[in-house]
Each structure stands twice: as structure tokens, then as C-alpha cells.
């Protein structure tokens, strides 16, 4: 399914159904944060990593 079609389908859900999805997304965000998985490398460290790989 294309992204616009999926968005239209999600937008057409009832508010209650959308809130349930929001709660799942929120819980997933929390779990990712709690697991320390949301570590974004700085530009400098990403460049250094690339140089190391060469």
C-alpha cells in the first residue's frame, strides 16, 4: 500500500482507534529509550567512523 493511501486509511479511523495507536507508539518510544537504543551519533563521530571503515 502506498504511503498516502496508508495515511488516508489511518486518518479515517475513529479518534478512539487512533488514540490506541498513539498509546502503542508512545509505549514503544518509552521502551526504546529505556533500553538506551536512541543514541544518535554526532556528525563528528559518524565521520570518524566512516574514516575508520575506509
Amino acid at each position, binding site marked *: 500500500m502506498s504511503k*498516502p493511501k496508508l495515511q488516508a486509511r489511518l*486518518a479515517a479511523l475513529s479518534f*478512539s482507534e*487512533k*488514540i490506541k495507536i*498513539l498509546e502503542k507508539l508512545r509505549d514503544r*518510544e518509552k521502551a526504546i529509550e529505556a533500553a538506551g537504543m536512541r543514541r544518535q551519533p554526532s556528525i563528528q563521530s559518524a565521520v570518524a567512523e566512516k574514516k575508520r571503515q575506509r
Partner: protein
Amino acid sequence: MKATLEVINQMQADGIIGNYAIGGAVGATFYLAPAATVDLDVFVTLAGTGGTLLVSLSPIYEFLKSRGGKAQDEYIVVGDWPVQFLLPSDALEEEAVRDAVFTTVEGVVTRVMTAEHLVAIALKTGRAKDHSRILQFVEQAAYDPARLSEILDRHGLSAKWTQFEHRFLEGEQ
């Protein structure tokens, strides 16, 4: 969310707050596909503060703490949602609370700002995430352009909208 809204409605029934309306990302979700957010923004008017210059949110916090609410940074956790209570900061936000639409979440009645007010407030606030939200409204054709135009005119935001269009929508429409 159901438990959160029931507590807020009880707070209104008890006269702690006057009108309220959901704004922010949760409010936008009423009109758009859901996008991740961790908090609920609730704009409130306080009962009996007409003409008073200094108003305080402490009655809200006292009420919620007495019902198990826990303060967490700028939020108070009600039910399982961190809620940020906001007083309308200008005529646009006052109008947004006044004109909010009724809906229900799992059978609980609540009020959500109109799509056009959400767009206008996002435009006024102007952070990257606000611009991104406006673009979602545009892409999903989820607002009435004529109604938005009236609101922008009324609140002096038309020039800012033109800038936004130049920056983000040129070649799109």
C-alpha cells in the same frame, strides 16, 4: 486515555476549570494519521478568573495530586498520560478553546481544537515539529483553507503563512 479524560471532565464538573480543549499532537491526531507523541496538551480556561491578571494552575495541580496525579517536569501524570495544562496565551488560543469541537474517546466526551486552529497555533509557534505538523495537514488535505484564512487574518498571521508557503509549499500546489 479514557481514565485521563474522565479525571479532566470531573475537574471541569467540579468547577476547577472552565472550558478545555485538547491541542498539540494528540489534537492533530483527531484529523490526521497518528504520529508518535509522549504527552497530552490540554488548554484550559480557569473558572472565575475574569478580569484577573495573575492566574495560577495550582488549583489544577492540587486537584490532580489529591487524585493520585504525579508531577513530572512540566507535566502531571493523569491516568497513564503525562498532561501539560496550558492557559491560552493570546486571543488565538482563547478562540481555539472556545470553538473546539466535541468528540468521544472510548465513550468519554471531550473537546478537540479545530484543524484550522491547530494549524494557526502551529504556525504561530513555528518550531520544526510545528512546521512538520502543518505539512501533514496540507498533505492530507485535513483543513478548510477558507476557514484557516479567516483565522490567520483575524490574528495577524497571514504574512507568516505566506512565508511558510514560500518556504515549504512552493511547487507543491
